[in-house]
C-alpha cells in the first residue's frame, strides 16, 4: 500500500482581472504518494505557479481541499500554514527566494532558526547539507556573487535542511542552460532517492518530464495525468 502525501480535491482558484472573475484553476484533483517525483508541464499562464503556491500554503484556494501529510491546509489559519512551511513543505520559487546580501550559510540557516535548532546542531546540519549539495566551499560567499546554478543549489539546500516530506520547485530549470538544468534535475532525483521526499516540479519545458515518474499536464487550469 502506497503512503499518500498529498490529496487535492476539486480545487478551484479565481482571480479578479479588470472587474472579471477568471478561473485560473478549474476543479483540480490529484493524489501524490511518498517518494513520487511529479512534473507538471504547461504553458505560461496555465496556473502552475498558483497551484504550487496553494500546495505550499502561500495562497488559498477559493474552493476544494488540499490535504498534505494528513493536514487539511484549507482549514488551517495563516500561522499554522507557516508552521507547515517550516517543517513539512518546502517551496523553491522561480527566482530562488534567497536574500542576496546574506551568505550561503546565513540563507540556509534561516529555516533552522525558525525551527529553534541549537547553534551547534545548526552548524553541523548546514555543513552536511551544503556538502551534499556540492556547495560547501561557497559557504561564506554572498548569494549575489553566485551563478544561477549555484543559487538554485542554495535554494534547494535551504529547502532540504529541514528534511521536508514535500519539496515544491517552481520552474527549477528556467534560468539555467540545459547542461546545468540536467544537473539540478538529477539532484532532485538524488534527494528523492536518499530522503524519500516527494518532489513536485512545474515547468513550461517538456524536457523535464523524462525525469519524473508521475507526469501531469496543466492547460487552462485543468490538470491531467499523462
Amino acid at each position: 500500500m502506497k503512503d499518500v502525501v498529498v490529496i487535492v480535491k476539486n480545487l478551484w482558484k479565481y482571480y479578479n482581472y479588470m472587474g472579471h472573475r477568471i478561473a485560473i484553476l478549474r476543479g483540480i484533483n490529484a493524489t501524490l504518494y511518498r517518494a513520487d517525483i511529479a512534473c507538471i508541464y504547461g504553458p505560461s499562464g496555465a496556473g502552475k505557479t498558483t497551484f504550487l503556491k496553494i500546495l505550499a500554503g502561500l495562497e488559498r484556494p477559493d474552493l476544494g481541499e488540499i490535504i498534505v501529510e494528513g493536514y487539511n491546509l484549507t482549514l488551517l489559519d495563516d500561522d499554522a500554514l507557516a508552521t507547515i512551511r517550516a517543517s513539512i513543505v518546502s517551496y523553491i520559487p522561480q527566482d530562488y527566494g534567497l536574500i542576496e546580501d546574506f551568505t550561503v550559510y546565513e540563507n540556509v540557516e534561516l529555516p533552522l532558526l525558525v525551527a529553534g535548532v541549537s547553534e551547534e546542531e545548526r552548524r553541523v546540519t548546514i555543513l552536511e547539507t551544503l556538502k551534499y549539495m556540492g556547495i560547501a566551499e561557497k559557504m561564506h560567499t554572498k548569494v549575489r556573487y553566485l551563478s544561477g546554478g549555484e543559487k538554485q543549489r542554495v535554494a534547494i539546500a535551504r529547502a532540504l535542511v529541514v528534511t521536508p516530506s514535500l519539496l515544491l520547485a517552481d520552474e527549477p530549470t528556467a534560468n539555467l542552460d540545459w547542461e546545468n538544468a540536467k544537473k539540478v534535475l538529477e539532484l532532485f532525483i538524488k534527494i528523492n532517492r536518499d530522503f524519500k521526499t516527494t518532489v513536485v516540479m512545474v515547468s513550461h519545458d517538456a524536457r523535464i518530464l523524462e525525469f519524473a515518474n508521475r507526469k501531469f499536464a496543466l492547460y487552462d487550469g485543468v490538470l491531467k495525468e499523462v
Partner: protein
Amino acid sequence: MHYKILMKTAKYSVTCNGFSYVLLYTLSLTLYITICFSEIALFISLLLSIMMLYASLLSDRLSIAQLINAYSIVGLKRKEIVASFYIFANTRVLVIAIAFLVAYPSIVIAFLTLSNTFIALVYYFTFRRV
C-alpha cells in the same frame, strides 16, 4: 519570536544602501537643529525626518521585499514578519533619533511615535502583499 532572526534583520538594515543616506542625513540634521534652533526648524526637521525614513525604505524596497519573501517561504509567521520589518525600519529611526536627542531631547518620544505610525502605514500599503 526568533531573537537571532531579529538581530540578523537589524544587521541587514545597517548593510543596505538606505542606511548610508540616513547616516548622512542625521549628521546634517544634527548641525541644522543645533545651529538653527527654533520651533519652526523643529517642525520642519520632524517632517524631513519622516520623509528621509520613507526615502531610505523606498531605496531598499527590493531588499525588503526579498527579506519578507524569504522569511515567508521558510515559515516565519505573519506577525513575526511584521516585527522584522519594524526592526529593519527602527534601526534607521534610532539613528535619526540621535540628532533629536542631541539638540532637543523632549521631542524624541514624539518622533518615535510619529515614525512608528508611519512605518505601520508603509508596511500596510507597500509590503503587506509581497
